[in-house]
Protein backbone atom coordinates (compact mmCIF):
# COMPACT_ATOMS: atom_id res chain seq x y z
CA UNK A 1 0.00 0.00 0.00
CA UNK A 2 2.74 2.43 -0.88
CA UNK A 3 2.90 4.44 -4.08
CA UNK A 4 5.47 3.39 -6.67
CA UNK A 5 8.33 5.87 -7.19
CA UNK A 6 7.63 8.94 -9.30
CA UNK A 7 9.36 12.22 -10.03
CA UNK A 8 7.72 15.06 -8.14
CA UNK A 9 7.16 18.52 -9.58
CA UNK A 10 5.62 21.47 -7.77
CA UNK A 11 5.09 24.33 -10.21
CA UNK A 12 4.07 27.78 -8.94
CA UNK A 13 2.10 28.95 -11.99
CA UNK A 14 -0.45 27.57 -14.44
CA UNK A 15 2.01 28.26 -17.28
CA UNK A 16 4.70 26.22 -15.56
CA UNK A 17 2.25 23.39 -14.88
CA UNK A 18 1.11 23.37 -18.51
CA UNK A 19 4.70 23.34 -19.71
CA UNK A 20 5.46 20.31 -17.54
CA UNK A 21 2.27 18.61 -18.69
CA UNK A 22 3.21 19.15 -22.35
CA UNK A 23 6.81 17.99 -22.01
CA UNK A 24 6.74 15.09 -19.53
CA UNK A 25 5.77 11.56 -20.50
CA UNK A 26 3.16 9.73 -18.41
CA UNK A 27 2.53 12.65 -16.05
CA UNK A 28 -0.51 13.11 -13.79
CA UNK A 29 -1.78 16.23 -12.10
CA UNK A 30 -2.20 16.03 -8.33
CA UNK A 31 -5.03 18.18 -7.00
CA UNK A 32 -6.41 17.40 -3.52
CA UNK A 33 -5.22 13.82 -3.84
CA UNK A 34 -8.16 12.27 -2.01
CA UNK A 35 -8.88 9.90 -4.91
CA UNK A 36 -5.54 9.87 -6.72
CA UNK A 37 -3.50 9.01 -3.62
CA UNK A 38 -5.51 5.85 -2.87
CA UNK A 39 -5.08 4.93 -6.54
CA UNK A 40 -1.33 5.51 -6.23
CA UNK A 41 -1.11 3.62 -2.95
CA UNK A 42 -3.03 0.68 -4.42
CA UNK A 43 -0.94 1.01 -7.58
CA UNK A 44 -3.96 1.34 -9.80
CA UNK A 45 -2.25 4.49 -11.10
CA UNK A 46 1.50 4.61 -11.68
CA UNK A 47 2.59 7.86 -13.30
CA UNK A 48 6.28 8.53 -13.92
CA UNK A 49 5.75 12.17 -13.02
CA UNK A 50 3.40 13.81 -10.57
CA UNK A 51 2.68 17.51 -11.06
CA UNK A 52 1.43 18.90 -7.76
CA UNK A 53 -0.97 21.82 -8.23
CA UNK A 54 -1.19 22.70 -4.54
CA UNK A 55 1.33 25.51 -4.74
CA UNK A 56 0.10 26.97 -8.03
CA UNK A 57 -1.04 30.56 -7.60
CA UNK A 58 -4.50 31.70 -8.59
CA UNK A 59 -6.32 28.39 -8.96
CA UNK A 60 -8.46 28.67 -5.82
CA UNK A 61 -11.27 31.04 -4.98
CA UNK A 62 -14.96 31.74 -5.51
CA UNK A 63 -16.14 34.90 -7.26
CA UNK A 64 -19.45 36.18 -8.63
CA UNK A 65 -19.05 37.00 -12.28
CA UNK A 66 -21.83 38.25 -14.55
CA UNK A 67 -24.71 36.01 -13.46
CA UNK A 68 -22.45 33.08 -12.65
CA UNK A 69 -20.22 31.83 -9.85
CA UNK A 70 -16.68 31.12 -10.88
CA UNK A 71 -14.98 28.51 -8.73
CA UNK A 72 -11.25 27.92 -9.18
CA UNK A 73 -10.37 24.30 -9.90
CA UNK A 74 -8.22 23.99 -6.75
CA UNK A 75 -10.86 25.38 -4.41
CA UNK A 76 -11.24 22.95 -1.51
CA UNK A 77 -14.59 21.24 -1.10
CA UNK A 78 -14.76 22.49 2.49
CA UNK A 79 -14.30 26.10 1.37
CA UNK A 80 -17.10 25.70 -1.17
CA UNK A 81 -19.37 24.10 1.42
CA UNK A 82 -18.85 27.04 3.78
CA UNK A 83 -18.87 29.81 1.18
CA UNK A 84 -21.66 32.35 1.78
CA UNK A 85 -21.86 32.91 -2.00
CA UNK A 86 -22.41 29.22 -2.66
CA UNK A 87 -24.88 28.84 0.18
CA UNK A 88 -26.90 31.80 -1.04
CA UNK A 89 -26.88 31.11 -4.77
CA UNK A 90 -26.12 27.43 -5.22
CA UNK A 91 -27.80 25.66 -2.30
CA UNK A 92 -27.78 22.43 -4.34
CA UNK A 93 -24.00 22.37 -4.29
CA UNK A 94 -23.78 23.20 -0.58
CA UNK A 95 -26.23 20.40 0.24
CA UNK A 96 -24.50 17.84 -1.99
CA UNK A 97 -21.10 18.61 -0.47
CA UNK A 98 -22.24 17.37 2.94
CA UNK A 99 -22.34 13.92 1.30
CA UNK A 100 -18.84 14.18 -0.20
CA UNK A 101 -16.48 12.09 1.90
CA UNK A 102 -15.79 13.46 5.35
CA UNK A 103 -14.47 16.61 6.93
CA UNK A 104 -10.87 15.39 6.67
CA UNK A 105 -11.16 14.62 2.98
CA UNK A 106 -13.16 17.79 2.17
CA UNK A 107 -10.36 19.83 3.76
CA UNK A 108 -8.11 18.58 0.97
CA UNK A 109 -10.38 17.50 -1.88
CA UNK A 110 -11.00 20.04 -4.65
CA UNK A 111 -13.85 20.63 -7.07
CA UNK A 112 -11.52 20.39 -10.07
CA UNK A 113 -10.09 17.11 -8.87
CA UNK A 114 -13.55 15.71 -8.34
CA UNK A 115 -14.76 16.70 -11.81
CA UNK A 116 -11.64 15.38 -13.57
CA UNK A 117 -11.59 12.15 -11.59
CA UNK A 118 -15.17 11.75 -12.87
CA UNK A 119 -16.25 8.96 -10.60
CA UNK A 120 -19.72 7.81 -11.72
CA UNK A 121 -21.05 8.46 -8.21
CA UNK A 122 -19.30 11.76 -7.53
CA UNK A 123 -21.78 14.25 -6.10
CA UNK A 124 -20.05 17.30 -7.58
CA UNK A 125 -20.21 15.82 -11.07
CA UNK A 126 -23.98 15.31 -10.73
CA UNK A 127 -24.44 18.83 -9.33
CA UNK A 128 -22.34 20.48 -12.05
CA UNK A 129 -24.41 18.57 -14.61
CA UNK A 130 -27.70 19.61 -13.01
CA UNK A 131 -26.58 23.25 -13.04
CA UNK A 132 -25.16 23.30 -16.60
CA UNK A 133 -21.63 24.23 -15.53
CA UNK A 134 -19.11 25.49 -18.08
CA UNK A 135 -15.48 24.57 -17.56
CA UNK A 136 -12.38 26.66 -18.28
CA UNK A 137 -9.93 24.25 -19.88
CA UNK A 138 -6.45 25.59 -20.45
CA UNK A 139 -3.89 24.14 -22.84
CA UNK A 140 -0.84 25.25 -24.80
CA UNK A 141 -3.01 27.29 -27.19
CA UNK A 142 -5.07 29.08 -24.55
CA UNK A 143 -8.36 28.64 -22.70
CA UNK A 144 -11.46 26.98 -24.14
CA UNK A 145 -14.97 26.60 -22.80
CA UNK A 146 -16.15 23.06 -22.23
CA UNK A 147 -19.74 22.28 -21.29
CA UNK A 148 -20.00 19.85 -18.38
CA UNK A 149 -22.30 17.81 -20.62
CA UNK A 150 -19.35 17.21 -22.97
CA UNK A 151 -16.89 16.34 -20.22
CA UNK A 152 -17.50 12.59 -19.81
CA UNK A 153 -16.12 10.49 -22.65
CA UNK A 154 -16.67 7.24 -20.80
CA UNK A 155 -16.00 5.62 -17.43
CA UNK A 156 -13.80 8.02 -15.42
CA UNK A 157 -12.51 9.56 -18.65
CA UNK A 158 -12.80 13.34 -19.04
CA UNK A 159 -12.55 14.82 -22.52
CA UNK A 160 -9.34 16.72 -21.79
CA UNK A 161 -6.29 16.39 -24.01
CA UNK A 162 -3.14 15.10 -22.24
CA UNK A 163 -1.62 18.59 -22.28
CA UNK A 164 -4.76 20.34 -20.99
CA UNK A 165 -5.91 21.12 -17.47
CA UNK A 166 -9.12 22.35 -15.87
CA UNK A 167 -8.58 25.76 -14.27
CA UNK A 168 -12.08 26.91 -13.24
CA UNK A 169 -15.75 26.00 -13.20
CA UNK A 170 -18.42 28.56 -14.04
CA UNK A 171 -21.94 27.90 -12.90
CA UNK A 172 -24.79 30.06 -14.16
CA UNK A 173 -26.90 31.14 -11.18
CA UNK A 174 -30.40 29.73 -11.11
CA UNK A 175 -32.93 32.52 -10.49
CA UNK A 176 -33.51 33.67 -6.90
CA UNK A 177 -36.36 31.70 -5.37
CA UNK A 178 -35.54 28.49 -7.21
CA UNK A 179 -35.82 25.25 -5.26
CA UNK A 180 -33.10 22.62 -5.26
CA UNK A 181 -32.50 19.33 -3.51
CA UNK A 182 -29.93 16.57 -3.49
CA UNK A 183 -30.77 13.05 -2.36
CA UNK A 184 -28.51 10.03 -2.24
CA UNK A 185 -28.26 6.53 -0.93
CA UNK A 186 -24.92 5.16 0.28
CA UNK A 187 -24.08 2.25 2.57
CA UNK A 188 -22.42 4.67 4.99
CA UNK A 189 -22.68 8.46 5.06
CA UNK A 190 -19.63 9.78 3.24
CA UNK A 191 -19.16 6.75 1.04
CA UNK A 192 -19.66 7.05 -2.67
CA UNK A 193 -23.36 7.02 -3.44
CA UNK A 194 -24.85 3.92 -4.98
CA UNK A 195 -27.33 6.28 -6.61
CA UNK A 196 -28.04 9.99 -6.23
CA UNK A 197 -30.54 12.50 -7.62
CA UNK A 198 -30.24 16.28 -8.02
CA UNK A 199 -33.29 18.41 -8.78
CA UNK A 200 -33.68 22.11 -9.56
CA UNK A 201 -37.11 23.67 -10.02
CA UNK A 202 -38.00 27.22 -11.01
CA UNK A 203 -41.63 28.11 -10.30
CA UNK A 204 -43.59 30.91 -11.91
CA UNK A 205 -47.21 31.67 -11.12
CA UNK A 206 -47.59 28.35 -9.30
CA UNK A 207 -46.31 26.31 -12.22
CA UNK A 208 -42.95 24.79 -13.05
CA UNK A 209 -41.19 27.10 -15.48
CA UNK A 210 -37.98 25.10 -15.61
CA UNK A 211 -36.91 21.73 -14.26
CA UNK A 212 -33.54 20.05 -14.08
CA UNK A 213 -33.23 16.43 -12.98
CA UNK A 214 -29.95 14.52 -12.86
CA UNK A 215 -29.03 11.05 -11.64
CA UNK A 216 -25.59 10.03 -10.42
CA UNK A 217 -24.17 6.57 -9.93
CA UNK A 218 -26.46 4.78 -12.37
CA UNK A 219 -24.12 4.68 -15.37
CA UNK A 220 -20.61 5.65 -16.43
CA UNK A 221 -21.48 9.33 -16.24
CA UNK A 222 -24.21 11.55 -14.82
CA UNK A 223 -27.60 11.22 -16.49
CA UNK A 224 -29.79 14.26 -17.22
CA UNK A 225 -33.40 13.16 -17.60
CA UNK A 226 -34.39 15.55 -20.40
CA UNK A 227 -37.67 13.84 -21.22
CA UNK A 228 -38.82 13.99 -17.63
CA UNK A 229 -37.73 17.64 -17.42
CA UNK A 230 -39.80 18.50 -20.49
CA UNK A 231 -42.81 16.68 -19.05
CA UNK A 232 -42.56 18.69 -15.81
CA UNK A 233 -42.40 22.08 -17.52
CA UNK A 234 -45.68 23.99 -17.40
CA UNK A 235 -47.24 21.70 -14.80
CA UNK A 236 -48.36 22.58 -11.28
CA UNK A 237 -46.14 20.79 -8.74
CA UNK A 238 -47.78 17.84 -7.00
CA UNK A 239 -46.84 14.49 -5.48
CA UNK A 240 -48.57 12.70 -8.35
CA UNK A 241 -46.68 14.71 -10.95
CA UNK A 242 -43.33 13.98 -9.33
CA UNK A 243 -44.17 10.30 -8.95
CA UNK A 244 -44.98 10.12 -12.64
CA UNK A 245 -41.81 12.02 -13.65
CA UNK A 246 -39.65 9.84 -11.44
CA UNK A 247 -41.24 6.70 -12.89
CA UNK A 248 -39.13 7.38 -16.00
CA UNK A 249 -36.18 6.15 -13.94
CA UNK A 250 -37.67 2.67 -14.08
CA UNK A 251 -36.61 2.27 -17.68
CA UNK A 252 -33.13 3.85 -17.67
CA UNK A 253 -30.07 1.83 -18.49
CA UNK A 254 -28.27 1.28 -15.18
CA UNK A 255 -25.03 -0.48 -14.31
CA UNK A 256 -24.50 -3.50 -12.11
CA UNK A 257 -21.48 -3.79 -9.83
CA UNK A 258 -20.62 -5.64 -6.62
CA UNK A 259 -22.47 -2.96 -4.60
CA UNK A 260 -25.82 -3.15 -6.35
CA UNK A 261 -27.50 -4.72 -9.38
CA UNK A 262 -29.02 -2.57 -12.12
CA UNK A 263 -32.64 -3.21 -11.09
CA UNK A 264 -31.88 -1.96 -7.59
CA UNK A 265 -30.28 1.21 -8.93
CA UNK A 266 -33.38 1.84 -11.09
CA UNK A 267 -35.64 1.52 -8.06
CA UNK A 268 -33.39 3.74 -5.99
CA UNK A 269 -33.28 6.28 -8.81
CA UNK A 270 -37.07 6.52 -9.00
CA UNK A 271 -37.41 6.97 -5.24
CA UNK A 272 -34.56 9.47 -4.92
CA UNK A 273 -35.71 11.46 -7.95
CA UNK A 274 -39.25 11.71 -6.55
CA UNK A 275 -37.93 12.83 -3.15
CA UNK A 276 -35.54 15.35 -4.70
CA UNK A 277 -38.29 16.87 -6.85
CA UNK A 278 -40.70 17.11 -3.91
CA UNK A 279 -38.04 18.70 -1.68
CA UNK A 280 -37.02 21.12 -4.41
CA UNK A 281 -40.65 22.17 -4.93
CA UNK A 282 -41.14 22.72 -1.21
CA UNK A 283 -38.09 24.99 -1.12
CA UNK A 284 -38.99 27.01 -4.20
CA UNK A 285 -40.76 30.30 -3.70
CA UNK A 286 -42.75 31.76 -6.54
CA UNK A 287 -41.34 35.20 -7.22
CA UNK A 288 -43.81 38.08 -6.96
CA UNK A 289 -45.48 38.69 -10.28
CA UNK A 290 -43.77 41.44 -12.21
CA UNK A 291 -46.31 44.11 -13.19
CA UNK A 292 -44.16 45.43 -15.97
CA UNK A 293 -40.64 45.13 -17.20
CA UNK A 294 -38.41 46.90 -14.75
Amino acid sequence: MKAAPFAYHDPRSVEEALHLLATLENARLLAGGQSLMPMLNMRVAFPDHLIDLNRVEGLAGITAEGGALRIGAMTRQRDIEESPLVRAHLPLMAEALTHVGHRQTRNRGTIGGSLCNLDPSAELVAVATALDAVLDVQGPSGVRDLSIHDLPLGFMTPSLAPEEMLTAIRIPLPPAGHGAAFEEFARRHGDYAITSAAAVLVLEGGRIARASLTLGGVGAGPLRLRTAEAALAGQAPSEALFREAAAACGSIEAMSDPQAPAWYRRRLAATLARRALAAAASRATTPARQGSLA
Partner: protein
Amino acid sequence: MTEAPDATLAVILTVNGERHAIRVEARRTLADALRDNCGLTGTHLGCEHGVCGACTVLMDGEPVRACLLFAVQAQGRAIRTVEGLAEGGELSPLQRAFIDNHALQCGYCTPGFLMLGTAILDRDPDISDEALVDALSSNICRCTGYANIVKAVRAAAAEMREKVPA
Protein backbone atom coordinates in the same frame (compact mmCIF):
# COMPACT_ATOMS: atom_id res chain seq x y z
CA MET B 1 11.26 19.01 -8.40
CA THR B 2 13.12 15.71 -8.38
CA GLU B 3 15.47 14.37 -11.03
CA ALA B 4 15.19 10.64 -10.40
CA PRO B 5 11.99 9.03 -9.14
CA ASP B 6 13.77 7.44 -6.16
CA ALA B 7 15.74 10.56 -5.20
CA THR B 8 15.21 11.88 -1.69
CA LEU B 9 14.08 15.41 -1.04
CA ALA B 10 14.99 17.67 1.84
CA VAL B 11 11.80 18.50 3.71
CA ILE B 12 11.30 20.49 6.86
CA LEU B 13 8.26 19.45 8.88
CA THR B 14 6.95 21.44 11.82
CA VAL B 15 5.30 18.95 14.13
CA ASN B 16 3.84 20.00 17.47
CA GLY B 17 5.91 23.15 17.24
CA GLU B 18 9.14 21.27 16.67
CA ARG B 19 11.20 21.46 13.52
CA HIS B 20 12.17 18.19 11.85
CA ALA B 21 14.64 18.37 8.96
CA ILE B 22 14.27 15.07 7.11
CA ARG B 23 15.06 13.52 3.73
CA VAL B 24 12.28 11.53 2.10
CA GLU B 25 11.31 10.11 -1.25
CA ALA B 26 8.50 12.08 -2.88
CA ARG B 27 6.23 9.04 -2.62
CA ARG B 28 6.43 8.97 1.19
CA THR B 29 3.18 9.93 2.83
CA LEU B 30 3.05 12.35 5.71
CA ALA B 31 2.01 9.47 7.97
CA ASP B 32 5.07 7.44 6.95
CA ALA B 33 7.38 10.40 7.47
CA LEU B 34 5.94 11.16 10.90
CA ARG B 35 6.46 7.58 12.01
CA ASP B 36 9.68 6.59 10.28
CA ASN B 37 11.57 9.85 9.87
CA CYS B 38 10.39 11.86 12.87
CA GLY B 39 10.00 8.88 15.21
CA LEU B 40 6.47 9.95 16.12
CA THR B 41 4.73 6.60 16.05
CA GLY B 42 1.57 7.83 17.75
CA THR B 43 0.01 8.40 14.33
CA HIS B 44 -1.33 5.02 13.23
CA LEU B 45 -1.84 3.71 9.72
CA GLY B 46 -4.85 1.53 9.14
CA CYS B 47 -6.04 1.28 5.57
CA GLU B 48 -3.63 3.62 3.76
CA HIS B 49 -6.32 4.65 1.33
CA GLY B 50 -8.35 7.20 3.19
CA VAL B 51 -11.17 5.08 4.55
CA CYS B 52 -10.41 4.38 8.22
CA GLY B 53 -9.22 7.74 9.57
CA ALA B 54 -6.66 6.19 11.96
CA CYS B 55 -3.93 8.48 10.59
CA THR B 56 -5.86 11.72 11.15
CA VAL B 57 -3.60 14.64 12.12
CA LEU B 58 -4.21 18.37 12.18
CA MET B 59 -2.67 20.54 9.48
CA ASP B 60 -2.95 24.24 10.26
CA GLY B 61 -5.65 23.28 12.75
CA GLU B 62 -7.81 21.28 10.35
CA PRO B 63 -8.11 17.49 10.39
CA VAL B 64 -6.64 15.70 7.38
CA ARG B 65 -5.81 12.10 6.56
CA ALA B 66 -2.03 11.79 6.77
CA CYS B 67 -2.06 8.81 4.37
CA LEU B 68 -3.55 11.00 1.63
CA LEU B 69 -0.83 13.65 1.74
CA PHE B 70 2.78 13.37 0.72
CA ALA B 71 5.30 14.49 3.32
CA VAL B 72 6.75 16.99 0.86
CA GLN B 73 3.33 18.70 0.67
CA ALA B 74 3.34 19.41 4.39
CA GLN B 75 6.41 21.63 4.29
CA GLY B 76 5.63 25.05 5.74
CA ARG B 77 2.42 23.86 7.43
CA ALA B 78 1.87 23.39 11.15
CA ILE B 79 1.27 19.69 11.88
CA ARG B 80 -0.21 18.52 15.15
CA THR B 81 -0.19 14.87 16.15
CA VAL B 82 -1.40 12.92 19.17
CA GLU B 83 2.00 13.46 20.81
CA GLY B 84 1.17 17.17 20.89
CA LEU B 85 -2.06 16.92 22.88
CA ALA B 86 -0.65 16.57 26.40
CA GLU B 87 0.78 19.72 27.90
CA GLY B 88 3.53 19.59 30.51
CA GLY B 89 2.94 15.88 30.98
CA GLU B 90 -0.75 16.41 31.62
CA LEU B 91 -3.26 14.76 29.33
CA SER B 92 -5.71 16.97 27.46
CA PRO B 93 -9.34 17.00 28.63
CA LEU B 94 -10.28 14.85 25.63
CA GLN B 95 -7.56 12.30 26.35
CA ARG B 96 -8.71 12.04 29.96
CA ALA B 97 -12.32 11.76 28.86
CA PHE B 98 -11.38 8.82 26.61
CA ILE B 99 -9.98 7.01 29.66
CA ASP B 100 -12.86 7.93 31.96
CA ASN B 101 -15.51 6.87 29.44
CA HIS B 102 -13.81 3.71 28.22
CA ALA B 103 -13.66 5.15 24.71
CA LEU B 104 -10.85 2.85 23.70
CA GLN B 105 -10.13 -0.81 23.91
CA CYS B 106 -7.28 -1.91 21.64
CA GLY B 107 -6.26 1.70 21.02
CA TYR B 108 -5.43 1.41 17.36
CA CYS B 109 -7.95 3.98 16.18
CA THR B 110 -7.54 6.21 19.23
CA PRO B 111 -4.95 8.73 17.95
CA GLY B 112 -7.11 9.40 14.90
CA PHE B 113 -10.26 9.87 16.98
CA LEU B 114 -8.41 12.11 19.44
CA MET B 115 -7.15 14.38 16.69
CA LEU B 116 -10.54 14.50 14.99
CA GLY B 117 -12.26 15.15 18.33
CA THR B 118 -9.77 17.87 19.16
CA ALA B 119 -10.50 19.62 15.87
CA ILE B 120 -14.25 19.32 16.40
CA LEU B 121 -14.07 20.80 19.90
CA ASP B 122 -11.72 23.58 18.82
CA ARG B 123 -14.06 24.66 16.11
CA ASP B 124 -17.51 23.84 17.40
CA PRO B 125 -17.66 23.00 21.13
CA ASP B 126 -21.48 23.17 21.09
CA ILE B 127 -21.86 20.79 18.16
CA SER B 128 -25.22 19.00 17.99
CA ASP B 129 -25.45 15.26 18.67
CA GLU B 130 -26.36 14.58 15.07
CA ALA B 131 -23.48 16.64 13.66
CA LEU B 132 -21.05 15.04 16.12
CA VAL B 133 -22.02 11.52 15.07
CA ASP B 134 -21.75 12.57 11.45
CA ALA B 135 -18.29 14.08 11.98
CA LEU B 136 -17.02 11.06 13.92
CA SER B 137 -18.39 8.65 11.31
CA SER B 138 -15.34 9.38 9.17
CA ASN B 139 -13.22 7.23 11.45
CA ILE B 140 -13.53 3.50 12.05
CA CYS B 141 -13.31 1.78 15.44
CA ARG B 142 -13.66 -1.97 15.58
CA CYS B 143 -13.82 -2.41 19.38
CA THR B 144 -15.93 0.01 21.33
CA GLY B 145 -18.95 0.57 19.16
CA TYR B 146 -18.64 4.37 19.03
CA ALA B 147 -21.14 5.21 21.79
CA ASN B 148 -18.36 5.68 24.33
CA ILE B 149 -16.33 7.75 21.90
CA VAL B 150 -19.29 10.11 21.43
CA LYS B 151 -19.74 10.18 25.22
CA ALA B 152 -16.07 11.05 25.74
CA VAL B 153 -16.14 13.95 23.28
CA ARG B 154 -19.29 15.24 25.00
CA ALA B 155 -17.67 14.95 28.44
CA ALA B 156 -14.57 16.80 27.28
CA ALA B 157 -16.71 19.54 25.76
CA ALA B 158 -18.54 19.98 29.07
CA GLU B 159 -15.30 20.10 31.02
CA MET B 160 -13.70 22.59 28.65
CA ARG B 161 -16.79 24.81 28.85
CA GLU B 162 -16.57 24.91 32.65
CA LYS B 163 -12.92 25.90 32.51
CA VAL B 164 -13.31 28.76 30.07
CA PRO B 165 -15.18 31.68 31.58
CA ALA B 166 -17.84 32.99 29.24
